[in-house]
């Protein structure tokens, strides 16, 4: 970077070149601002695109469950519920699985095994959504319908969540496919978190006579819990917006049902399904409003997670971000 200063110039009068600093700051600032501008623009577009629906239905849009393009009546409740439930199912499955995988990789796996397993998990993240969906339709759904769901029903049928007819395509199948899709991100973030746990912690626990499990529980997991929670939140963010694969296995039925075997619908799915052929203005506006609801929902869930993260903070907790 720096050129040799010519000898005729006395060091005291060395010209200070400010422009590289200034221009770099400017570029960095612009980059940061453009992200903010993008979000604001998206928000504005969604709002202005949905004004007709907002004016017509008001807050009722959020609590009505009829979605009828023929009579131009729209309510978002089944889609909101479907989005939340399918994401929750995904988290319940993917978080324990992802954290356990990460624990295995950092604490237990022989070094030779680590890289291959990590590579396989990262490959999972590279598979396109629609491929998961096709696999879901042709492999996962028949298997679930014929072998898994009937067993679940006979064992857990006393709970209302596992009653009713079994079609295969269902809220549970949707949650499962999302779980598979968010597994890589939860696993790799968890792995980074666990790797950042200082070895001193582990050694101290061992010195106190702890078993391997106790070391993991006391020294590693409790140290890393804040970070692991962050990994789950990242996974949740992806789960809420997942579209294609879910659409293909969730059944696309705008009903709210207690049974997880019943078909459901998500916000992202209905937009993807109906946007292309929506011709009436109110219809299009309502689809836009669903988009707005999805954005707000995602922000709200993330904010809530941040709040919970704060309550988790305490002495000795690991730090993310």
């Amino acid at each position: 970077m720096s050129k040799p200063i010519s000898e005729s110039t006395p060091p005291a009068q060395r010209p200070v070149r400010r422009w590289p600093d200034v221009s770099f700051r400017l570029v960095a600032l612009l980059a940061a601002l453009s992200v903010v501008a993008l979000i604001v623009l998206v928000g504005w577009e969604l709002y202005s695109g949905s004004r007709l629906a907002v004016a017509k239905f008001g807050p009722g849009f959020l609590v009505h469950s009829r979605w009828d393009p023929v009579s131009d009546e729209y309510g978002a409740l089944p889609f909101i519920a479907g989005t939340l439930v399918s994401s929750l199912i995904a988290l319940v499955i993917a978080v324990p699985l992802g954290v356990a995988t990460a624990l295995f990789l950092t604490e237990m796996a022989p070094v030779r095994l680590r890289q291959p397993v990590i590579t396989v998990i990262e490959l999972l993240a590279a598979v396109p959504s629609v491929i998961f969906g096709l696999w879901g339709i042709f492999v996962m759904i028949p298997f679930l319908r014929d072998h898994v769901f009937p067993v679940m029903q006979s064992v857990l049928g006393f709970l209302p969540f596992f009653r009713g007819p079994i079609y295969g395509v269902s809220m549970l199948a949707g949650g499962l496919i999302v779980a598979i899709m968010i597994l890589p991100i939860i696993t790799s973030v968890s792995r980074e978190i666990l790797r950042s746990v200082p070895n001193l912690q582990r050694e101290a626990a061992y010195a106190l006579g702890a078993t391997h499990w106790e070391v993991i529980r006391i020294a590693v997991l409790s140290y890393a819990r804040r970070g692991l929670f962050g990994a789950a939140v990242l996974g949740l963010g992806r789960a809420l917006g997942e579209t294609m694969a879910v659409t293909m296995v969730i059944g696309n039925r705008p009903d709210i049902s207690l049974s997880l075997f019943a078909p459901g619908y998500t916000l992202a799915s209905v937009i993807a399904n109906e946007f292309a052929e929506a011709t009436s203005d109110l219809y299009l506006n309502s689809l836009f409003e669903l988009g707005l609801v999805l954005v707000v929902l995602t922000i709200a869930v993330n904010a809530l997670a941040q709040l919970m993260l704060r309550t988790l903070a305490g002495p000795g907790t690991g730090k993310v971000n």
Partner: protein
Amino acid sequence: MKRLLLAGLLGLAAAAALPAQILINGAGATFPQPIYTKWFDEYAKVDPSVRFNYQGIGSGGGQKQILSETVDFGASDGPMSDENLGKAPRTLWHIPTVAGAVVVSYNLPGSPKLRFDGPTLAAIFIGKIRKWSDPAIAAQNPGVSLPDQDILVVHRSDGSGTSYIFTDYLSSVSPDWAAQVGKNTSVNWPVGLGGKGNAGVAGQIKQSPGSIGYVELAYARQNKLPYADMKNAAGHYVAASLDSVTAALASAKIPDDFRFSMVNPPGADAYPIAGTTWLLVYEQQKDAAKGKKLVEFLKWAYTEGEKMAASLDYSPLPANVQERVLARVAAIKY
């Protein structure tokens, strides 16, 4: 590197030396996209000076884009509503291109050939008939052993022209359906599961014993799905085929603006669940050069192009409709 650059420059120069190619943009319906693409490919050999760019973004997008004049022609699987047509800055014409049928497919042991009439089909899709052994189904299918099994209805989850034609048909044969559900590219289905696209519906049917759903005829033929014969308005059970759809078009009542529904027409050989797809063009073209090329293309499409329809499982327009459409094309001003 230098040589590459030189080659590129030479290429550019060569391109510039050719007479300017006219680019005509269109957007809209996905159902007719295969045949339109074929037409544009073939037409490039007839008239190399014009190139078409068609984007299958859906009928909603096609209507929007032609209304805002960001494309030279639009395409739609359903006729435009009066409300949308009212937004057009000038007279916007619908011209039908090809027709397609929607067939009812099912999954029953042994894949028997079934027959339905409209009211029975509507009762199944509205949820009134819930079992395969229902007397209404049995009465139309003597000799077929129907299992005492629940019917699982499968419909399209994505908005589509296929759903429009199917719900249009159900509305025309069942007052209950017309009042409760109605017709549109997507509706509030009383029962059943939604599958994405023809493939999603067909996949769901193939995998679920006792299911029933609807797919495009072309898709059912290419994938060898069983499909039912339908009772038409003349009282005959008719199998869906390219000919029975063309017969339906020939007997359909077609108004002057071509915004018509051809479901349940009176013809004796007509298959009742069928519909056309339309191009949307302005009577007065904005750009004279483009308009001229577009009209030339359309004239070619309705004479030569229609002959290619059958090879892609679309039904061509019958002679009486073809004549009327050609007269409309000739009236486009530029």
